[in-house]
Structures are given as structure tokens and as C-alpha cells.
């Protein structure tokens, strides 16, 4: 359940936008925010770097820059040490014959030998991201620019990738797989007969959302075969979206969408010759409709594949070895958890396939293991009492493991490294000056990285740093203007804190105070909540538009605070994250209430003027707080909530709430819709009627329940808007105006003498 999915659109969109639109005029430099400045101007739009790629040969990195000669993008190579710049592909070379405008480079891939460039352009949104578009290959030597799959409908190609030899490109169009020879355009359809419910090389809605996979095929290292997923969604019931407004009669969108307890897609993986022929299907044990094949990679030879095979409750992940020639499978490794297991993205073969890396929480922390393929024996290589948030690089040659962690402060993120054999001590590479939130895109040998840094209310900057000494070599995106504008804004104190709610549980939080805060007065307080397993809100990073809105509210005179309850994915150990399993909503809201009871006692908090708001899972949490703890909140604003967990998708909800067979009680106790009777405060519910993710259906059922129980509330249904409620002219501004107006009407602003 991914809050604000719209933020995950491909980053280059910003660069493309900058290219196509004249730069926004700088607005009046005023230290007071307005909703128009935040939601109806480009004033706070950050600069992005890239997309940059470290070159495999270690010679530097490539990135895209706005051309100085034509309306287009140049592909440029830099030497990291010297900064020497070389234009590899000027925009002029991306002008297809017979036209005058360059292709807009939205993404690109180099062939392994570096002689060809695959260009992604003209993209269209598929559910969440722009994952279908057109692909072109540029031969650097000859300058020849050719479209791949030109016979298919415009903007219909997905996930195109060079063969390892660089002589072919494989791609998906309309749920079938194709291989095209670059030299002569000769094309083989590896599969035929793909339909919206018979899906090759691609995934159904729920897999994409909840396992984070889109690209559904893999070239074998020798280029002879392609391994791919096939999903049969024909037995999955459709959810319909009704678009009433774009035509005289409604347009319906059918989405196969497995809700909790419902039939899943039947998913299988197979191997086919890159020249076509019969597919050899992996003989994965169990019912293909009641399991998940969440990851697949070659092993790293061209004879074997490994797949991560999860049971439906997602508390067991079998790493299966698949024989490409026969489809025979065997279990290489198994991880289990009483709550749930996560898929392992940091899976890497070491020592020519003799060992592989694995990540498990089985000892109470998210730790990295190196497993011996032959006998299954494993070595814990991060034996310290903290979580590995994510792996940045496994440098097998140098024997280093680079990863993100934050042992002392769950609200921050830093780069660490330690020996891949588990010896020695972890070493923090991010310097003190990088306090806050850090993300690294590392060169293959670990000597360089793009470091993206931000902190609470401090915009992102991207720097090229030399490792391991973390020497900053060059700024890639300094966001100087945004940083200066943001720094000039009138703001009060912003602080992180912890509240002790007893039983040894301390919750992290942040608090933003109004400018000119007077500790002898009492102020209204707005809580911002998410509270589900997908994300934290208490993070020492640039909060973007939400941060700016909260800052705007402090300028009007509100306190704004946020608390991470148990069950949020903070690096505080397995128990912290998984104690909510089987009953999502109950413990989380109890934690939020406990924090509220402490904070409302703070002298400067007006306990009669406390409100809460949240989006998606945070919308559900807002409902839970308003229904279960009406004495603690006067007003709630719930955006795109899941009032009844039975209505959400099976993969997310069953992972955290458990299967319906085992945890029916948890669905009842955790879902807000069963607690409506408690409502006594003012409640605003906002939903997009075109929400393909968290269906409007849930809010409608909640409305019916509240009508039947004579409960009063305010609602706003944005026609056809999706989960991010941003489509359509004026929408974002309108929504924030609505939230702001509602808050101000129901929790009046203004400091008052302490009672």
C-alpha cells in the first residue's frame, strides 16, 4: 500500500519537464509560504542528476544533460577523478531520419561492449510509472539510429534489454515477448497470444505493486535463452474503474485484482530459446495459484536459474534452483518467519557461483549471510546488533560489503562497510557532516559513489564522492536555489524526540513548532500519521511537499508532529516491525494513542485542539484513531484510506494481516469500519474514485456504515483520480486547500493562554 505512488514516477521526468517547459519565474521571495507556492508552482521542484550510470569498464560514468544547441538531451561521460567531460552522444545524433527533433532520452542502457546505446523515449504511464514507451538503438560507430519493434503500437514496448552480446534486443509488447536482431531488424516472437490476462514478461497489478517487479524476463548470460514469467490472470476477478466524465457514456477499466482470500494469478516461469521454440517450464512445487514466484535470476551460469518461491502466507521463502534444460527444481535454501519473510533483492553469487548472499531476519535483526551452495551452510557476516537497511554494493573482489544502516538512530541513514567474511568491525563511511538521510549509487569497484543527502527540511543534494574516505569531488545537483528558498522560510524549532510509552517501548517522533513560538502559551496540534509496514514518517530527510505543507501550517500557528509506531519499517529489529503481524491496526493505533496521551500533557499543547491526518495506510490509521480514541482527537482527515482490510490486495494484506483462514479476527479488530460507533469528532474523508490501488469501494462501504449508524462526517470524492489524487488541473492545490480549510474550521488556529 504505497502512499503517494506518484512520487515514484521516473526521475528523468523532471529533467524532461525542465527541457520542455520554460523555467518558472521566481516568485516573490517571501518568507511566508502559500498553498499556491507549494502546490501550484515549480518553485520547490528539485533538480535531479542523471539518470547517471557507472560504466562497467570503470572508465567513469555517463549522464544526461540539456543540450546547448538543440531542444534535446546530450549523453555525456565524465571521468570522476578529473571531471573531464566528453559528449558521447550529442542530442543531434538522436534525431531519427526524416524528422527534425531529437528523441527525448528518458532512460538508456549501454550494451556490454559499450558500442551501442538503447534509448527509451515517448513513455506512457502504466498504473504507477511510465513503463511503456518506444525504444531506439544507436550504433555509436556508424551513427545509425533504428527503432526497435516499430511494427508494434506506439509507446507499447516494455523492458527492452540488450542481449549480453549486444547483437539483439528483447522486449515485451502487449504481453508477448520478442527478440529483434539489431543488424537487420529480423524479429522472432518468442510468445504469441498474450492478452490482458495472459501475461508474458510482465506482471499483473498486484505483483507489480507488492513485489516491486515489472520487468518479467532475463537474458541468459550466453544470450542463447530467455527466462520469463507468465501470469494467467484469467481466473482473477476484475475490479472495475468507472470513468464517468471523459465521455458521454462511462468508460470502464477492468483490472484483475486479487483481494484478500481471492484467487491469485497462476504464475510460472520458463526458459525459451532466444530463436523461439518450446518453453521449458520450471516444475515449481505446489499450486501455482497459491504461491508466489517473486524473484528470478540466472545462477549465474546459463544452465541454471534461481527463483524465490513464497507460500501464500508469505512466511516461507524457498530459494529454488531450476535446471533450464529440464525444468527440474531443487531447494537450495529456505528462510521462514512466524510473521512474514521479505523477498531478497540483495542476492548475489560469489566465487563463481559457489556461494551466494542472503538477507534474513531470523536472528532478530535484518542480517546478511553468505551461504555455501554445496552444503547449505551459512555464515553470518553482519553479526552486530543492528539492522542492515539495504545493501549498496557487494564488492566480491575487494571483499567488502557496503550497506545502509543507522545503528544509533532509526530516523537516519548512513553508508557503512564491513568485510564480506564477517571479520572486523563495521565502519561508517558517511561523515558527521552528512547527518540525516543518505543514499548511494556506487561504482562497481566501490571507489566512487553518487551520494544523495537530505535532512529534515533540507533539500536533496547529490555529490560525487570518492570512497572509502568519502571525499566530495564534485556536486552533481546542489539544488542551491531550492535550498536557499527553503532556508529563507520563516520557521520555528523542528526537533526529533522520543516518548516512552512504557513496557520498554520508546517511539520516535518529530515536532515542528510555529515561528515565534511562546512556551507560555498553548497551541493546536496536528499529527501526521502513516503507521503501516510500508513506510516510516519519522525520517530525518527532506519531506518534499508534505514537509512544506506542514511548515505552512506552523506558519499559521499549528504544532505539527509525527510518531512512528511499532510495525513501521524502522531499523529497530525484527520484533519492532513484525509484532503487528495478524492484526494490522490495533497495536499501531494503541501506540499512537499512548504517544498522544504523553504529548497532550506537554504544557504548550492545547489538548482540546488536537487533529490527525494521513494518506493511504495513514488514512486508515486516522480512521482508527478517530473511531477508537475519540477522546484524544477532535478532528481527523483521512485521505484514500483502507477502511476494511478485506478489500485490499491479497499480497500486501495477507503478508501483514495473515491469511483470512488463520487471522479472521485480526481483520475484524484491525479494520476501522468495525469501530465506527466510536466516532464523535469531526472527520473528513477524501478519496479518488479512480483509485486502482485502494479502491473507492472501501470508502463507499464506510460511508454506508456511517449513514446506517447516523454518524456525520464530511467527504470529498475526486472523480477519476488515482491513489495520489494529483490528476486533473488544479487537483493538488484543491486538495490541500480542502485539508487546510477543514483543519482551520474545526481546529481553530491561535495560541491561547494555558488553562
Amino acid at each position, binding site marked *: 500500500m504505497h502512499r503517494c505512488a506518484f512520487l515514484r514516477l521516473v526521475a528523468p521526468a523532471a529533467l524532461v519537464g525542465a527541457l520542455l517547459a520554460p523555467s518558472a519565474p521566481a516568485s516573490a521571495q517571501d518568507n511566508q509560504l502559500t498553498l499556491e507556492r507549494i502546490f501550484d508552482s515549480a518553485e520547490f521542484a528539485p533538480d535531479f542528476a542523471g539518470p547517471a550510470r557507472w560504466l562497467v569498464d570503470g572508465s567513469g560514468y555517463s549522464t544526461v544533460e540539456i543540450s546547448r544547441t538543440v531542444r534535446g538531451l546530450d549523453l555525456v561521460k565524465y571521468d570522476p577523478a578529473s571531471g573531464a567531460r566528453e559528449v558521447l552522444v550529442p542530442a543531434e545524433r538522436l534525431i531519427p531520419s526524416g524528422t527534425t527533433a531529437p528523441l527525448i532520452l528518458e532512460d538508456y542502457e549501454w550494451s556490454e561492449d559499450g558500442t551501442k546505446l538503447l534509448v527509451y523515449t515517448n513513455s506512457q504511464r502504466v498504473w504507477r510509472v511510465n513503463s511503456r514507451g518506444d525504444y531506439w538503438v544507436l550504433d555509436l560507430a556508424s551513427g545509425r539510429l533504428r527503432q526497435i519493434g516499430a511494427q508494434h503500437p506506439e509507446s507499447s514496448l516494455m523492458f527492452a534489454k540488450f542481449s549480453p552480446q549486444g547483437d539483439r534486443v528483447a522486449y515485451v509488447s502487449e504481453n508477448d515477448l520478442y527478440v529483434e536482431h539489431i543488424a537487420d531488424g529480423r524479429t522472432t516472437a518468442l510468445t504469441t497470444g498474450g492478452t490482458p490476462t495472459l501475461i508474458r514478461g510482465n506482471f499483473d497489478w498486484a505483483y507489480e505493486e507488492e513485489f516491486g517487479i515489472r520487468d518479467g524476463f532475463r537474458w541468459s548470460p550466453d544470450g542463447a535463452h530467455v527466462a520469463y514469467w507468465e501470469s494467467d490472470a484469467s481466473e482473477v476477478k476484475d475490479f472495475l474503474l468507472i470513468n464517468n466524465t471523459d465521455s458521454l457514456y462511462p468508460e470502464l477499466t477492468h483490472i484483475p485484482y486479487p483481494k484478500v482470500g481471492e484467487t491469485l494469478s497462476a504464475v510460472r516461469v520458463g526458459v525459451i530459446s532466444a530463436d523461439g521454440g518450446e518453453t521449458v517450464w520450471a516444475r515449481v512445487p505446489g499450486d501455482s495459484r497459491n504461491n508466489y514466484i517473486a524473484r528470478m535470476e540466472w545462477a549465474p551460469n546459463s544452465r541454471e536459474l534461481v527463483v524465490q518461491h513464497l507460500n501464500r502466507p508469505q512466511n516461507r521463502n524457498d530459494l529454488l534452483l531450476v535446471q533450464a534444460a529440464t525444468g527440474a527444481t531443487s531447494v537450495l535454501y529456505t528462510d521462514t518467519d512466524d510473521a512474514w519473510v521479505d523477498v531478497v533483492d540483495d542476492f548475489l553469487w560469489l566465487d563463481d557461483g559457489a556461494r551466494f548472499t542472503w538477507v534474513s531476519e531470523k536472528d532478530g535483526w535484518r542480517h546478511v549471510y553468505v551461504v555455501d551452495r554445496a552444503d547449505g551452510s551459512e555464515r553470518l557476516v553482519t553479526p552486530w546488533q543492528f539492522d542492515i537497511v539495504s545493501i549498496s554494493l557487494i564488492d566480491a573482489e575487494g571483499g567488502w560489503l557496503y550497506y545502509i544502516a543507522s545503528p544509533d538512530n532509526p530516523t537516519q541513514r548512513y553508508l557503512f562497510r564491513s568485510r564480506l567474511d564477517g571479520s572486523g568491525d563495521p565502519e561508517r563511511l558517511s561523515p558527521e557532516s552528512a547527518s540525516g538521510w543518505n543514499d548511494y549509487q556506487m561504482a562497481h569497484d566501490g571507489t566512487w559513489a553518487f551520494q544523495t543527502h537530505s535532512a529534515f527540511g533540507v533539500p536533496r543534494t547529490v555529490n560525487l564522492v570518492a570512497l572509502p574516505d568519502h571525499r566530495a569531488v564534485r556536486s552533481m545537483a546542489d539544488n542551491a536555489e531550492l535550498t536557499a528558498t527553503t532556508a529563507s522560510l520563516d520557521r520555528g524549532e523542528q526537533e526529533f524526540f522520543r516518548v516512552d510509552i512504557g513496557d520498554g517501548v520508546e517511539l520516535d517522533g518529530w515536532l515542528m513548532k510555529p515561528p515565534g513560538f511562546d512556551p507560555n502559551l498553548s497551541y493546536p496540534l496536528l499529527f501526521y500519521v502513516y503507521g503501516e509496514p510500508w513506510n516510516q514518517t519519522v525520517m530525518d530527510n527532506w519531506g518534499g511537499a508534505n514537509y512544506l505543507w506542514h511548515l505552512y501550517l506552523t506558519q499559521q500557528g499549528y504544532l505539527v508532529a509525527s510518531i512512528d509506531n511499532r510495525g513501521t519499517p524502522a531499523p529497530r529489529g525484527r520484533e519492532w516491525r513484525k509484532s503487528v503481524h495478524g492484526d494490522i491496526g490495533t497495536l499501531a493505533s494503541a501506540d499512537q494513542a499512548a504517544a498522544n496521551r504523553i504529548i497532550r500533557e506537554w504544557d504548550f499543547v492545547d489538548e482540546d485542539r488536537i487533529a490527525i491526518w494521513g494518506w493511504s495506510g495513514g488514512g486508515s490509521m486516522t480512521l482508527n484513531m478517530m473511531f477508537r480514541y475519540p477522546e484524544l482527537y477532535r478532528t481527523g482527515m483521512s485521505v484514500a484510506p483502507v477502511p476494511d482490510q478485506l478489500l485490499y490486495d491479497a499480497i500486501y494484506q495477507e503478508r501483514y494481516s495473515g491469511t483470512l483462514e488463520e487471522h479472521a479476527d485480526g481483520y475484524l479488530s484491525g479494520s476501522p469500519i468495525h469501530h465506527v460507533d466510536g466516532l464523535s469528532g469531526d472527520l473528513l474523508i477524501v478519496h479518488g474514485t479512480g483509485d486502482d490501488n485502494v479502491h473507492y469501494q472501501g470508502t463507499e462501504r464506510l*460511508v*454506508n456504515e456511517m*449513514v446506517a449508524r447516523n454518524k456525520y462526517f*464530511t467527504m470529498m470524492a*475526486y472523480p477519476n483520480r488515482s491513489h495520489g489524487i494529483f490528476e486533473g488541473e488544479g487537483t493538488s492545490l484543491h486538495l490541500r486547500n480542502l485539508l487546510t480549510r477543514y483543519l482551520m474550521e474545526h481546529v481553530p488556529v491561535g495560541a491561547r493562554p494555558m488553562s
Partner: protein
Amino acid sequence: MNSGVEWIREGNAFVLMSEKDGWRHAYVVSRDGEELSLLTPGASEIIERGRVDEERGFFYYFASPDNATQRYLYRARLDGSGAPERVTPADQGGTHRYEFSPDARWAFHTYSTFDTPPVTELVELPEHRVVRTLEDNDALRVRADSWITEPTEFLQLDIGGGVVMDAWMIKPRDFDPSLKYPVFVYQYSEPHAQDVLDLWGRGHAHFHRVVADLGYLVLCMDSRGTPAPKGAAWRRAVFGSLGPLSTEEQAAGLQEFGRTRPYADLSRVGIWGWSGGGSNTLNAMFRKPEVYQLGIAVAPKPQPHLYNAWFQEIYMRTVEENPDGYRRSAPINYAEGLEGDLLIIHGTGETNTHLEITEGLVDRLIELGKPFDYMAYPNRDHGLREGEGTPVHMRMLMLRYLLTHLPPGPR
């Protein structure tokens, strides 16, 4: 109900109603199309046909020549001789309905006024002799006496140009004419119905008594275009573009009301309506923002071109023939005028006035950056009745909105 013909004289003639002389009159026409007689001459008209009693030679019909808010039984001689006469006793006011026996010798007669619950009796015609009272509603009458603290006042508002609109007003309990009260206007204003009728329960009367007792004057006016028995010209004045004229006349009527009733506070005015009345609430809020501070549009039709062809094309022809009429009729084209507090209520299961008609307006208001309030009742149809609790929830929603945004009580 007034269309079609009734055959008489063994199929050699029929009774037909037409407005061709400016009034809705009944004619006897021969089978070969010759007009034989005008049954109801004069400058008044038939509200609705009754029954043909060929044996005794009468054509029964409903009319109210002197008061467009009432309705009585009349009869004319089928041979066209003599003057029509009123059958309903002269001492009974209000609104009268009759269900006739096949031979028209008997009828169930039901009558009420705005403040008096209905009585149903069996009468013998043509003498109108009461044979038996079937339902006297005594218990309801006793209860009603306790709610109806201020009799509903029927009034006429002259807005000039020869246009005199009927209206009713409900005053709050303990009304004090020396103070000024906020006004809550209820209207429909389209050709489908009249709301200013001297009829029990008409115009959401019971709800409006609750509203009035909270501290409002509730005012309802029928502007031109409503189907009052005031002549074809009255009804057809809106032809070609529903909305613009009624919006002007409602506002003018309100001004006249304020001018003649100093206790009406025209700086505090709300308006609401349902269906066509919802559309005209939008018209009022968008085109007369200086007049109305609050509006509640229930199941409105802000885009008439999305409504059904039958209704819309009768009154406005087709979009191709009359694009300007549709443009001027559509509240959505005036949304930029919105200044007051607007609540829009719609059922998403509308079979009649589809949700799409309102969703387009929602998009437009968002685009314009206009704040407004919206309640979409899932799967409810045009009457917003379905589902446990719905009717009460909707009225409570309206009351809460009214109380919040247009505070009640005299000043």
C-alpha cells in the same frame, strides 16, 4: 397525464386537451378530425383530466380558476352546453383528488391543505354526497397541531412585467416580526412540478417546519416555467433554455419578499433544491453570488446536455438546433461565479440524473480552485432513499451544513 384521447360516442368522437388558444382546454373532436365543441371555454384552464361520464353527459376535470396553488373537481357538459361548474363543495379549500369508480358514480375523495392532514371519504357523484369517511387522520391532526405553531402563509409576489409569483412561507416558532430572520429558499423552478401547492406534505413541508423552528424563514416560490395553471405562456416562458429566467425571477421574488417583509434579513439567504431545483440552486450560487450566501444542490443537473433526450429536448430542442440555449442553461458554465458555501449531494447509483453530470462540475470547480462541499451517497438513486438511515442522514447533513454556514435566529 393530459396527453392522449378518450373515445366517446361509440368511437365516433374523442375528448382531447390542447393549449392551442393559450389555455389548457378540452375539446370534443370527431373521428374524422373535426372540432365539435370546446368544453371548457374562458381564461382559465384544466389542471388535469378527470373522467368521462358519458351516461350522464359529463366531463370531470380538475381546475382552480382563482388560485393556482389549489385544485378542485369541476365538470362540463359533454355536449358543450352550459357553463362548467365546481363539484367540490364551495366551503372546502385546499387540494382535492378523486379516484372514480368506472361508472363515475362514486369516488374516493381525498383533500388536504398545506397545514391540514388529508381526509379520505367515499362520495356519491354528481351530488358529492358523503357516504362514509374512510380515513380522518385524527391522530395525525392532533400531532400536527402541536408542530404547526405558525400557520403557513401563502403570498403573492409581484416582480413586475405582469409576473405575479405564488409563494409560501413558514415562520419559526415564537416568530417576532420586529426582528430580522435569515431566509432559506426552497425551489424547483423547472417544468416538471409546482411546489407552491396548498397540499399536505408538499415541498418537504415537514422538514421545512423543522428548519423554520431552528430560526429561519423558509420561503418557496414558483417562478415562470413551473407547471402552474396560469396559462400556456406562463409555462412556456422558459422554452429554449431552462435556468436563466427562473434564476432571475427567484432572485427578484426574493427582493420583493424582503421589500414587503421587513423581518426578512436578505443579508442572510440560503437556497436549496433537488433535481431541477438542485440545478437552479447551482444557478443561483453561480449567477447571483451577491444574493445567496449558501446553497445545497441535491442531485442536480449542471450539464443539461447529459440528461435524457426526452425531457431536455421537449423544453430546449436538440443541442444541434439550440447550442446557445444549452450553453446558457448549464450551471457548469457559470461556476466561476461561486462565492458562497456550496454543498452538492448526489447518489452514485442514479438511474435518472447520472453522477457523471455532477462529477463534471466537481472537476470544473477543482480546476477553478473553488472550495465546495460534496457528499456522494453510494448507490443511491435519484430519491436518495435506499439504505438504512439514508433519508435521516441526508436531512441531518443539510441541517448541520445550514446551521454551520448560515447561523440561525433573529437579529
